């Protein structure tokens, strides 16, 4: 029966090519636009570290003085050197890392390359095991290296390709900002998007090439790069390690169970109380522990333009659907004669209804294919835009499936009313009026 309906639908669609074309075009445009924006939204709001995002928490405490305090206000986004080091050495979580961003000048060993600046991450050793960072060559540094302020670095594989042509560079020396560093590791393909652990620099497509111990970076006098929030008489400047009135470091912890997270939160409150009794903190304990997705959500990491575009595209899809409903109604009503004959010869309403829905489904399928092509084109346009997330805009299998489900679903929905109307015509009067 289904085959017969398909055959009928094909014949009918072929009979009025202009109307069919209009319907397919409308669905394709609506689907193309929505899938383009939805894919961008999907990519941008994706989970940067699936499988572990619920166990990783960003720590916020409030070390500021009572000046400007309002109950219920958010604590600071980052921590100061002294608090960060206290929390790091307290070892209250399974894994923890204190970090900040930076920029270092690289003097390449090959003289054919001009010196250049590269984004860097200054972090304690917990970073690599906590974020499950893969290594191509060598290894990460240890807590002892942190303590010793060892002059060593880990490179991203992109930077390793650029400097050493992709060869194993472990054991070689690299000159950074006028100092010599020993390369002890090269990362594998690792680039979490969004750049969740530090949203100060750039939320997407941040590619840090150099990783070095946080203590080493301060020892070498490298400036940090990113946000600095100061209070009281604090000010940004040189030697931030002596400055306890500026927050410029991110502190992340791994806590595997909700019970551990609750306990850690208690620990942070106790820490704040202790600091308050020492006279360093003045505010009542104000702590937050947000996991990766909560942290991204809190920072509204998806650009508002992208969200607006998604709504706009769905508005377009809605108009296209209304348009398709109208055109299908026109098409089905025009076939009153044919449908009446089929009714008179014994086809039930349900059979006619199914037949018409098969026809709408076929329009949807064609619209979905058209929409897919338009979405691929749209994503190509997005990729050639200067936005920082541009290169991420690719269709994945899930979105491909959604495209067709959405297209066929939408056209079936658009076909429901016209089909219902068309198969409720009294066959006798329709036949007579012929």
């Amino acid at each position, binding site marked *: 029966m289904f085959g017969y309906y398909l055959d009928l639908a094909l014949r009918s669609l072929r009979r009025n090519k202009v109307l069919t074309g209009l319907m397919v075009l409308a669905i394709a445009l609506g689907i193309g636009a929505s899938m383009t924006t939805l894919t961008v939204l999907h990519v941008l709001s994706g989970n940067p570290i699936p499988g572990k995002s619920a166990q990783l928490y960003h720590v916020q405490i409030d070390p500021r003085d009572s000046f400007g305090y309002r109950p219920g206000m958010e604590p600071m986004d980052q921590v100061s050197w002294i608090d960060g080091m206290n929390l790091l050495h307290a070892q209250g979580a399974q894994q923890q890392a204190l970090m900040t961003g930076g920029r270092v000048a690289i003097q390449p060993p090959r003289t054919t390359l001009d010196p250049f600046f590269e984004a860097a991450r200054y972090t304690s050793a917990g970073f690599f095991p906590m974020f499950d960072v893969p290594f191509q060559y060598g290894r990460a540094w240890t807590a002892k290296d942190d303590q010793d302020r060892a002059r060593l670095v880990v490179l991203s594989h992109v930077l390793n390709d650029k400097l050493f042509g992709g060869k194993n560079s472990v054991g070689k020396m690299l000159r950074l900002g006028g100092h010599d560093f020993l390369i002890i590791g090269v990362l594998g393909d690792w680039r979490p998007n969004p750049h969740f652990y530090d949203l100060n620099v750039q939320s997407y497509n941040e590619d840090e090439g150099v990783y070095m111990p946080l203590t080493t970076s301060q020892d070498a006098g490298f400036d940090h790069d990113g946000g600095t929030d100061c209070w009281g008489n604090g000010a940004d400047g040189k030697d931030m390690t002596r400055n306890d009135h500026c927050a410029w470091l991110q502190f992340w912890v791994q806590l595997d169970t909700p019970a551990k997270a609750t306990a850690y939160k208690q620990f942070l409150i106790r820490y704040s109380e202790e600091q308050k009794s020492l006279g360093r903190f003045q505010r009542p304990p104000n702590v937050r522990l947000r996991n990766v997705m909560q942290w991204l959500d809190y920072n509204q990491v998806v650009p508002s333009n992208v969200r607006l575009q998604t709504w706009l595209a769905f508005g377009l899809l809605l108009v296209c659907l209304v348009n398709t409903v109208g055109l299908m109604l026109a098409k089905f009503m*025009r076939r009153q004669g044919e449908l009446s004959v089929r009714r008179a010869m014994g086809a039930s309403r349900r059979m006619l209804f199914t037949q018409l829905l098969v026809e709408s489904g076929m329009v949807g399928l064609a619209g979905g294919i058209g929409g897919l092509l338009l979405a691929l084109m749209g994503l190509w346009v997005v990729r050639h835009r200067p936005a920082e997330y541009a290169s991420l805009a690719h269709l994945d299998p899930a979105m491909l499936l959604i495209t067709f489900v959405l297209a066929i679903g939408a056209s079936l929905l658009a076909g429901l009313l016209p089909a219902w109307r068309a198969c409720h015509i009294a066959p006798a009067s329709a036949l007579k009026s012929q």
Partner: protein
Amino acid sequence: MQILPIFAALRRHKLVMWLLILEIALTCAIVCNSMFLIAQNLQRMHMPSGIAEHELVQIQMAYIGTRPDSGARTQADLAALRQIPGVTQVALVDKLPFGSGNNSNIKLKPDQPQPSMNAGLYFGENLLPTFGVKLIAGRSFAPEEFVTLDQALQGINDNSPNDLPHVAIVTQAMAQRLWPVQNALGKTFYIGKDIPLRVVGVLARLTRPNTLQAGPAFSFVVPISENLSDGGGSYVVRSKPQDRARVLRDAVAKLKAIDPNRVVLAHRTYDEARAAFFQADQSMAGTLVGVCVVLLVVTALGIGGLASFWVAQRRKQIGIRRAIGATRGDILRYFQTENFLIVSFGIAIGMLLAFVLNAVLMKFYELPHLPLYYLPIGALALWGLGQLAVLGPALRAAAVPPVVATRSV
């Protein structure tokens, strides 16, 4: 032209009519709001900066590691840049309008719990003549008022007021915001940990580097001289607009020749720097224009498609009307009037929807109210579109010969 028969006919096609009205209303609401967003984006993109935009080039350099003699080297660089033919002014500044950089909270009294306002902070020797900003009151900085950036940072860390600047030049907008009725000259405001700055001059306009939503024209200049250290400032070179490309090329070559062991982070004309800052707005405006065009095309196709369905359905009635005396013009006008009525109704509902949509958008984005003049423009556009879409089917209807009336099918 009789309207009543049209209503009588439409009553028999309620569903299709309502679908058309709904489609037109949705299109009207979305297009009105999109046009408004486009206008907002364009307005932002064309915001004046207050500086001689078409005469400036920017070169951002950085040393590798710290240079103890960076002050002297900076002076050598500036002298070399001044030698380039066609160059009128040169400065090393910390930031430019429409770029990156921090802003400062401004207080009128020391110990004020909440800041009075937030403004962009500029510094760099010879900044005012190079930017070409107009001083409308007071004076420019005297050479002895300048401190170096290292000195100022040290001053902040050590709490020594002697190492800090004491005066500032503010924009007119900032002066009016802080002292609405009084003369700003001679007044004092406070930044950071209560550093006092006395106003000695007022500028016509100098747009802040970023955070434009906090008041684009709020900015001030302090007498700090920038040193070319680790990725710090930008050289800004002023010349005639037609010389810019050559000056930029020569300047980069000259700076590299003076000291090859440093990195050029950016070199571009100010127009390019400005365009880069507004890229997101530009691509958003492009997207909105695209969506509007697609919406209008789809709506036009929908109107045209349904009109041809109606024409086909009413062939016999048209034939009868022609047979009993209606002219081709009558038939043509019948369909045009019908379309006009439906579109008008759609526009009426669409206007309401447009305001609802605007209210929703205002809740989530920083947007003002939709101005009323968008409505007549939107209405005219949709009426025109409707008439254009219906013309083809209406002409086909007018071409139906009267003899159709006598045929059975």
